[in-house]
């Protein structure tokens, strides 16, 4: 089916997130203004104004009432989803990159970049039910990781925090004590910067994409490597289908090299792989730059991709996709 082109951002996309019901799509870009769209027809619903720097990621609460965003302006902000009002701003001394609510939405994990003299950190904040009670205090701060942390997410039952980033290593931390529990194997793990990480709907496994031109599937509890998907391009974005045995990989050349190659050379294609057989089953072209963000709709019937070109493309799968027999 023809994709729906959503032009609302003026700068490269950085992150895409569906709410739990799959009717809203939140997009983040380097243009300071996170935007919410109707996930079905691509109409723009509204924007969240207040950030003063690129917005790197966002998460929406289970009841779709609150949005949290992390930005290069050294803040993470809480928003009221329906009114677009800024509720609270966590201030940091370095850009905030990855944000995620825990189960129950009472906790959020936020990462900060290495910036000036500051080393990267992973911080856990309590999210108060009433905004009036909200404080900036951190419940936990994890330090000691070298190199930028590109993604930090909660493990099953909020008991662990999983981090991945520039040092190509995936780490699992105890979310209570901040102790390092597990680390991915140097041999079997990624060889270059991990650019993205995305969990399965039940949080039992997750997929990581890396600039080493591969994506890998891991067990969330044991950090066992289950599958590897190899492609020809650096991988910038990954996601797991919530309903089918497919994963999607997106990427392309580094942004700085893009102008030197033509559209096809960059392979700005969202590539679909069979999750179990690790075979490529298809691809969706269209972006004029590398794909930076990918997300499946929770109903598994559509997905959206965000590119360096500033577009969000919303694709509803053809019936062929649901009839794939391998």
């Amino acid at each position, binding site marked *: 089916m023809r994709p729906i082109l959503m032009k609302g951002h003026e700068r490269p996309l950085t992150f895409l997130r569906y709410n739990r019901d799959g009717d809203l799509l939140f997009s983040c870009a380097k243009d300071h203004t996170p935007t919410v769209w109707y996930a079905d027809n691509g109409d723009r619903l509204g924007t969240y104004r207040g950030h003063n720097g690129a917005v790197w990621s966002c998460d929406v609460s289970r009841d779709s009432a609150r949005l949290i965003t992390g930005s290069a302006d050294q803040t993470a902000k809480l928003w009221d989803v329906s009114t677009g009002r800024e509720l609270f701003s966590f201030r940091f001394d370095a850009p905030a990159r990855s944000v995620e609510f825990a189960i129950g939405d009472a906790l959020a994990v936020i990462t900060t970049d290495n910036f000036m003299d500051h080393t990267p950190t992973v911080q856990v904040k309590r999210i108060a039910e009433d905004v009036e009670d909200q404080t900036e205090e951190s419940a936990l701060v994890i330090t000691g990781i070298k190199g930028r942390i590109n993604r930090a997410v909660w493990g099953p039952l909020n008991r662990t925090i999983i981090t991945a980033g520039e040092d190509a290593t995936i780490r699992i931390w105890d979310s209570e004590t901040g102790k390092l529990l597990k680390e991915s194997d140097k041999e079997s793990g990624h060889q270059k910067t991990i650019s993205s990480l995305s969990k399965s709907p039940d949080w039992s*496994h997750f997929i990581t994409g890396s600039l080493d031109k591969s994506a890998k599937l891991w067990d969330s509890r044991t950090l066992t490597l289950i599958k590897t998907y190899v492609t020809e391009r650096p991988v910038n974005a990954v996601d797991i289908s919530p309903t089918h045995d497919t994963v999607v990989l997106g990427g392309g050349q580094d942004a700085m090299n893009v102008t030197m190659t033509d559209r096809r050379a960059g392979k700005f294609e969202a590539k679909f792989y069979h999750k179990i057989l690790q075979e490529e089953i298809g691809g969706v072209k269209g972006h004029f730059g590398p794909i930076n963000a990918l997300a499946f709709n929770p109903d598994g019937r559509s997905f959206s991709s965000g590119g360096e070109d500033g577009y969000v493309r919303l694709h509803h799968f053809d019936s062929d996709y649901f009839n794939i027999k391998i």
Partner: protein
Amino acid sequence: MALEISMEGIEARARELGVDLSAVDLDSIDLPADEDFGILSDDEDVLRDDDFPELDAGFSNIIVVDNLPVVPPEKFEKLENVVRKIYSQIGVIKENGLWMPVNPETKKTYGYCFIEYNTPQEAELAREKTHGYKLDKSHIFAVNMFDDFEKYMKVPDTWTPAEIKPYTPGENLLKWLTDDKARDQFVIRAGTYTEVYWNDARKLAPELVFQKQYWTDSFIQWSPLGTYLATVHRQGSQVWGGESGFERLMRFAHAQVKLIDFSPGERYLVTYSSHEPSNPRDTHRVVLNIFDVRTGKVMRDFKGSADEFTTGGHTGVSGVSWPIFRWGGGKDDKYFARLGKNVISVYETDTFSLLDKKSLKIENVVDFSWSPTDPIISLFVPETGGGNQPARVSLVQIPGKEELRQKNLFSVSDCKMYWQNNGEYLAVQVDRYTKTKKSTYTGFELFRIKERDIPIEVLELENKNDKIIAFAWEPKGHRFAVIHGDGPRPDISFYTMRTTSNTSRVTKLTTLKAKQANALFWSPAGRFIVLAGLKGFNGQLEFFNVDELETMATGEHFMATDIMWDPTGRYLATAVTSVHEMENGFQIWSFSGKHLYKVSKDHFYQFMWRPRPPSLLSPEKEEEISKNLKKYSKKYEQEDQDAFNQLSEQERKRRTELQEEWDSWVAKWKQMHEEERAYRMELREGEASDAEEEYEAKEVEVEEVVDVQEEVLAFDLDQE
């Protein structure tokens, strides 16, 4: 032979030679001052620490000059100066590197001296240049490498008949041709690995035959008939092959070898190296060796300055146009030739010397090429004397050196020669100046070599201004293809040298307009051709059937840099090598343009099909087989089907296994997920569990006050 030295051995040897060991006085040998023979004692080593470390500890940079005059001490200095003068012209003699020993009793010299250079290359050069140098009538220098002395000393004085080794049957070097599935092999080089595969088109995947890391230092090359795989190393070249995997068959020592080339019948291997001169003003020194591939013997070596080997037509910036020696006379490897200044030097392999002891003198010759099958040279001489002397192309028969045919050409700017691979035709592409001399146009001179008197036909393109982008003869056929045109989308024309009605005139078959192609790849079996758009065209492929004049298929291997047919013409390989950073790897296509499979490899350097020797079947037999193809193909179709079934069986099994493995993961996760349900509910403060169906859809109307505005409206009360 291991040398075991024991005291008894020495005594026995001394008795044999008639030497009384007790009479030997080691102290009587005069050692020069400050000389340690390169053996440093420990403390000296420490003292010398600040010095530049010696890179070459061997004696390969020392020569021994014999037959010097024997002089008394008065004349010692004079002689030393003379010797120094001679030898410092060739290279830099090391400090204290000239040593002329003196007989302690007579105080006269012994008539020899040692000279140590900085590099072995200089020593080698000095040996070559001054061996046989006449100092005066009675003193002709005999120069040897110091290292060679040991070798010469070992030669026994009495002749013993050579030991004849019992015959051991060699390995079957042609084993790969007997593959029961009739597959072809190819070799690839990616990263540090060199790998040989079967191209298994039935399985749609390559099957590994042999793999080795760091197999070669620079590149690999198959011999022209596919028997050997050559690797190139710092010390020389090696060839590999045989029945079981790839065994080393022979080594060819040639230090710093850069390029190699096999003769067409793969009997000889030419190796090339060029060496930096010690004096930066000098030109590079070039060394060429011709080895016999089977025995490993050097048949002939050529040495000289780079200038001597770079004369002639198409010299690049880097110097030599490889191969320097071009082999002629078909598969018998009978002749090889080299272009020199105003000469073509033809050598024969019976004696490895110049044919008739002299080169072929041709003023101003710039290019030549051999017929692929016959000992015929075609050569090109450009215009001279400001156009007074026309350019000419001539055919010369070897060994008679008689001119078979000659054609004078006027206002020629350049000439290229293309032989058809059966040696039946020669096409000469001639670029001529227009009358104004401002631009050029191109025509072809077509020679029919096998016909009486070698008739020549002139062919001009319909549009004379078209540039020729590519030209290619159909292998074993009578047709050729030309890509011509000026714009971004050139045309491609096909011509035939004979039609059924007209056997002596060239006829155009068709012209394909506006194609995205800049290279032509005929199938080795003829009939099919791939029109490829490399470089600027990003790897467009068009598979064209010239018999039917129709396009069979089109394809694209994005950014493809190399295209190679397998030796049978059944499959085509397209590759992106490491000239591009991305997309490295290769793809295999069927002859008809069906994409079969693809392999991605980072740092992909080389792809080469293993060549096959020519078929042993007679042309009649081949004809018969192709007539009864239906009968034969039935059997193979059945095999194909069986292979396919078996494959899908295996594949199904593999997939089931993967699925089962996955299911076990999922089951485990499900169970844990269930176990954790209670905790999750707790975390969500009692909110119902994860599953969607427990939701109850309720219509709830929510009213929200977005904004309240108060405005005072003015009422006109006066109306009443």
